[in-house]
């Protein structure tokens, strides 16, 4: 048994996919020239007034209901005051004591069963505006930092989990599931490289010391630039906290919450400025913005707009399509467009498992090799479905499947045309039977072997059958030969 339990809560900031900022009409487009997407509102000029972006409210509401949150009847805006060069107003417009949603949950599971399926509670999800960006050119040794305020005022949804995760693996699963959900409902592109998704982790340990449960001080880890970095940082931090506890015996409450930054290259967390206490932000209601109330109709409409969520699709792929948990996960993780492709193909094929095999093995391999998406894949869902159906009916021998698939892929042919171009035709059963009969007559020793109990001896006949007629279905040849021998 482990010496301690790691307690993890995650704060995730996602940029909502609006065209304009949260309180003004500046563009949110990533990658523009510095300071070309700002206006008096987002750079905090005196006398300017913010107005809420209704699309940001809609996207936030969709996310909140997808996370099973309750939506309070009234929500308001607060000013969070802190002094930093990338925050031109000297405060951030955020939500403090009346967030737009709270008390949700997200289920995480592991198809490899490394942890038990569990629900991670969501404490709250609230809207806020993003800050700008400071760039310090250390190479040039310049004394000044350059501030770019393009990002200032971009809508963010901060999703705060309860400290319900118990390992780096669970934290990773939560992030994967959250990202999948957000991209399925289309509220964010979740691009970590462009800062559309940022993660902070709150980590401490529960140590069992002779029956007494001791909690170590909570550390907030920042500056993690990938989900892998989050996993590594949590693992490192748990070990570090245990070591510190052994050395100092410091417990939760002995010191204020500490902030540490993850250094990915060095693989360590390092101490940062001590976190200002919540009261230091001196929150107060923003008088420039009126409160928001979501009606029951709006909440219902948001729920109805979600479409099928990843967890539901995974379940139905297993229960209705008979796929394994692993296959369901592989398909769902590819995103909504691939699921649509798969489902359309299954409708035509009437064989879920067959389509799943071709999609997860061949289609995904081709997409990966060509670094392309399913949108531009040369075999349409209907063609793939037809192709699988033809194998199921026996019209296309399974052994020739790969050749036909390749022909469809390279020449953009339908399954029928690809089969025609390869000279594949279904061999009539009686034709097949006479072929088998002649083979048995020519190979009395094999017949004896099979009769003597060596069933696998029939394999040699399959090879000969294919030589005489490449369209012969190996499994049929095998069966017919065995049946004929049994009657001999």
């Amino acid at each position, binding site marked *: 048994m482990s010496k301690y339990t790691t307690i993890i809560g995650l704060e995730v900031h996602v940029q909502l996919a*609006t*065209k*304009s900022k949260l309180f003004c*009409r*500046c*563009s949110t487009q990533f990658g523009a*020239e*510095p*300071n*070309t*997407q*700002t*206006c*008096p509102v987002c*750079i905090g000029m005196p006398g300017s007034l913010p*107005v*809420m*972006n*209704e*699309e*940001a*409210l809609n996207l936030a509401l969709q996310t909140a209901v997808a996370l099973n949150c309750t939506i309070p009847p*009234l929500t*308001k805006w607060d000013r969070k*005051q*802190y*002094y*930093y*060069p990338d925050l031109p107003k*000297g405060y951030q417009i955020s939500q403090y004591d*009346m967030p737009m949603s709270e008390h949700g949950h997200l289920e995480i599971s592991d198809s490899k069963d490394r942890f038990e399926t569990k629900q991670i509670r969501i404490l709250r999800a609230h809207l806020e505006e993003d800050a700008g960006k*400071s*760039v*310090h050119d250390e190479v040039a040794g*310049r*004394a*000044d*930092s*350059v*501030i*770019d*305020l393009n990002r200032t005022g971009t809508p963010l949804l901060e999703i705060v989990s309860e400290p319900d995760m118990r390992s780096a693996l669970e934290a990773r699963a939560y992030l994967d599931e959250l990202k999948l959900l957000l991209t399925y409902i289309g509220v964010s592109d979740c691009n970590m490289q462009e800062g559309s998704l940022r993660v902070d982790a709150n980590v401490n340990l529960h140590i069992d010391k002779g029956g007494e449960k001791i909690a170590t001080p909570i550390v907030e880890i920042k500056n993690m630039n990938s989900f892998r970095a989050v996993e590594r940082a949590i693992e490192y931090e748990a070990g570090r906290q245990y070591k510190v506890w052994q050395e100092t015996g410091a417990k939760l409450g002995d010191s204020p919450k500490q902030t540490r930054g993850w250094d990915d290259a060095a693989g360590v967390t390092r101490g*940062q*400025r001590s976190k*200002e206490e919540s009261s*230091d932000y*001196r929150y107060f*209601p923003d*008088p420039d*913005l*009126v*409160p*928001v*109330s979501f009606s029951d109709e709006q909440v219902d409409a948001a729920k109805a707009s979600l479409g099928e969520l990843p967890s539901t699709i995974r379940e139905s792929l297993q229960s209705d399509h008979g796929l394994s948990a692993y296959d369901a996960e592989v398909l769902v993780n590819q995103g909504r467009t691939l699921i649509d492709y798969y489902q359309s193909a299954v409708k035509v094929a009437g064989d879920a498992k067959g389509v799943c095999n071709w999609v997860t093995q061949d289609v995904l391999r081709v997409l990966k090799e060509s670094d392309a998406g399913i949108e531009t894949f040369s075999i349409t869902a209907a063609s793939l479905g037809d192709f699988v159906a033809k194998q199921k009916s026996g019209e296309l021998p399974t052994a020739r499947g790969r050749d036909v698939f390749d022909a469809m892929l390279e020449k953009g042919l339908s399954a029928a045309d690809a089969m025609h171009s390869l000279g594949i035709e279904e061999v009539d059963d009686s034709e097949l039977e006479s072929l088998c009969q002649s083979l048995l007559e020519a190979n009395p020793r094999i017949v004896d072997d099979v009769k003597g109990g060596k069933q696998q001896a029939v394999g040699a006949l399959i090879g000969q059958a294919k030589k005489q007629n490449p369209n012969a279905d190996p499994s049929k040849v095998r069966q017919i030969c065995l049946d004929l021998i049994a009657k001999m």
Partner: protein
Amino acid sequence: MSLTSDDVEKVALLARLMLSPDELESMTAEMQQIVGYVDQLAEVDTTGIEPMAHAVELRNVTKDDNVAPSLPRGEALANAPKHNEEGYLVPAVLGD
């Protein structure tokens, strides 16, 4: 409610203001006056009155999600104490 010079020092630190001992003293007195003025509101009996989220009874004032032109960069940067052709220049923020 009375304000101490410690309170003022803390607020000054949060606002990144450096006050001399003289300034701290006069500032404490002045801030005490402001807080005392607002404190008069406490005399009103608010028993049984629902707190309001905002001073006006409006709700849901929104704009649509359409982009409008931003300020030309030169104009946006014009009032900054220090800037180059691309951005605002501030003393280096390091060690964070």
